[in-house]
Structures are given as C-alpha cells and as structure tokens.
C-alpha cells in the first residue's frame, strides 16, 4: 500500500506535496497530465476528458474536465502550495483510440484531440513536456511519485513503464 495516495477521478484534479503519490486509473481517450516543481516537491495531476471548454453546455463548468481549463487551474493550486510557475515541468499519458474504426469522425478522434489540446495549453504556459506516453489503442493507469518525480504508466497490453 502506498501512503499518501491521492486518487483522481474522471474529469478531476488534485495536488500533493512531499512524499505523496497521485494516481488516476482507466485512462482511455482521456489524458492524464502531471505537473511538477522538483525544487519544492509539489505535484499536481489532472484527468482530462475533453479538449476545450468552449463545447461545454449548461450547468457549472468543471474546470478539471477540459485541457484548456484544467492546466491553468492545476498551476494555480500548485502555486498556492508554494510551487514556482517557472520551474514547472510536465509529463503526460493517455489519449488512446480504444476502438479501431471511424477514425475520421471527431468523436472517435477524441484521444488525439485531447493530447493536442493538452500540449497546446502547456506550450501556452511555457511548461516543458519532459516525457509522454500517448496514443495507441490501449488503456492506462498512471501514478506520479512526488518525491522522485517519476510517472509510472501501467497498461494491460504493454506492462509498466517509468517516465
């Protein structure tokens, strides 16, 4: 059992400091992104479901759901804990295409669009992407270890991988 494990659900985000571990499971077309300030050992993770909040309709906006809102929100929450925006680095995984057909329809390409939007947003905020394991046609569970800065990517088809 991992101590200080913080679970992040679908369209959810959270931050942790020190020896904590962030985990989100069952990423398919969704993208899991972790931000990290190694100096202050503060980390954040978001489970992004959709590329852009522009398509949101009705009700309160869940910032964690969209690439363009989740990443700024993570940055904000981490800086409240004492992280420096300038030192932030990113790792990301997910954005798969779980089902093989119809790659031309927008809905079916959602994985690739999520990856693209996440990268755009990171670029906009000048956060370098240190590593990624995206695309493919398989699901992933990811764990970010705040002490070491390692992102562990688990999958049924490809086994474990450290980023």
């Amino acid at each position: 059992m991992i101590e200080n494990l913080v679970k992040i659900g679908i369209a959810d985000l959270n931050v942790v400091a020190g020896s904590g571990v962030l985990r989100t499971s069952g990423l398919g077309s969704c993208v899991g992104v972790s931000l990290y300030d190694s100096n202050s050992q503060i980390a954040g993770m978001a489970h992004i479901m959709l590329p852009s909040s522009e398509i949101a309709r009705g009700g309160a906006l869940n910032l964690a759901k969209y690439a363009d809102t989740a990443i700024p929100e993570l940055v904000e929450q981490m800086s409240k804990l004492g992280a420096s925006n300038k030192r932030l680095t990113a790792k990301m995984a997910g954005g798969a295409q779980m089902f093989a057909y119809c790659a031309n329809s927008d809905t079916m390409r959602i994985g690739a669009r999520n990856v693209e939007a996440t990268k755009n947003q990171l670029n906009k905020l000048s956060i370098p992407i240190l590593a990624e394991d995206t695309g493919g046609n398989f699901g992933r569970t990811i764990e970010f270890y705040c002490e070491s800065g390692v992102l562990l990517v688990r999958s049924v088809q490809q086994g474990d991988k450290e980023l």
Partner: protein
Amino acid sequence: MFPYNKFAEFQMDVLKEVGNIGAGNAATSLSKMMNKVIDMQVPKVEMLDFEEIPEKLGGSENVVIAVFLRFEGEAPGNIFFVLQKESANRLLKNLAGIEVQDANVYTEMELSALNEIGNILAGSYLTSLADFTSLNLTPSVPSLAIDMAGAVISYGLIQFGQMGDQALLIDTVFMEGQDAVEGHFLLIPDPESFHTIFRALGVPLND
C-alpha cells in the same frame, strides 16, 4: 434546454422498457446461438456520476471484453456489450468450440469470434430499438476492445461530458446457467436523444 437529468418516474419506466426490448431481443439472439436459455434482469435506468460507471463493470482497472457500437441518425447514442473474461471464455467454448488457452493473449480466431458475437448482439439491440421507436438509427461498424473498464467505457461518456459529470445509463444484465455466462448491455443515448425517443413513443415531455 431539455432537463435530461430530471426525468419523471414514468419517463424512467419508458426507458426501462426501451432497455427491456433492446436487450431482450439481443438475449433472444444469444439464446438461439447458444441453444440455451438466457435469463435477463430488469433493466436499471440510472443517472450516475462518471466515477461510478466503471464500478458497474468491476472497477476502473478491471479488464473487460467490450464491443462498442455508435449509432447516428434521429436519436444518436452508444451501445456497449460487456463481458468479464471468464464469461467470454465460456461463450467462446459454447458458441465456437474454442478452448481459450491463455486469456491474456487471445488469438486472432478468438478475437474474431468475440467480435462477431458482439456484432450480432449489439446489432440486434439496435435493430429492435429502431423498430420499437420507428426512428431512423444507423449503426457504425461495431468494434472490440479488451482493456480496463474505465478506459473502454469513457468512450461512451463523451457526449454527456459536454453537459455535466453524470451520464444516464440503461443497463441490462443477462446470464446463462446461474452465472456461468454473465454480461451487460449498456445503452447510453446522447443527452439530446431522450427528447426524440420520448416523442417517438408518445411520452409527454416535461417543460
């Protein structure tokens, strides 16, 4: 906007009936293929948080066999046919006489058989749905995935994702011989489709 998350009791009952007819037809197809009696539970119609949905299939990381069919037309939506591994292996044995050697690596033959079974069942669910509602619904080619339940099912939640953090699921469990083969038929109409489905069935709409 149509309050898709606030259905009246009688509207939920209509959706239950939609599930009953769709899954009932699919179960009949399966029963014919297997030459065995297939039992079906009363469909559950629930508005669930995204988080809760993979739990219905054994948890986010539980590996399932899923056939996904997207349908477009007058009332677009998603259909999943989901089996646990043990059930898939029994199905393969019963239907195709295939003894699965290693359930972690299905052979081409096994995959193709599973895909075909899923095609037939998801197709028959959709056909009866279209007949029952007299709506024009056109299916995509069904596709198979064997992976974490969370990763697989999230594909069916994208349309609801634009509205909120919940989805309405019409979930029907079927089984053969107590629990030897057990699976789920999941129907997830797009949020906009409920209006059309209710209207097609002559169900009064709430304002």
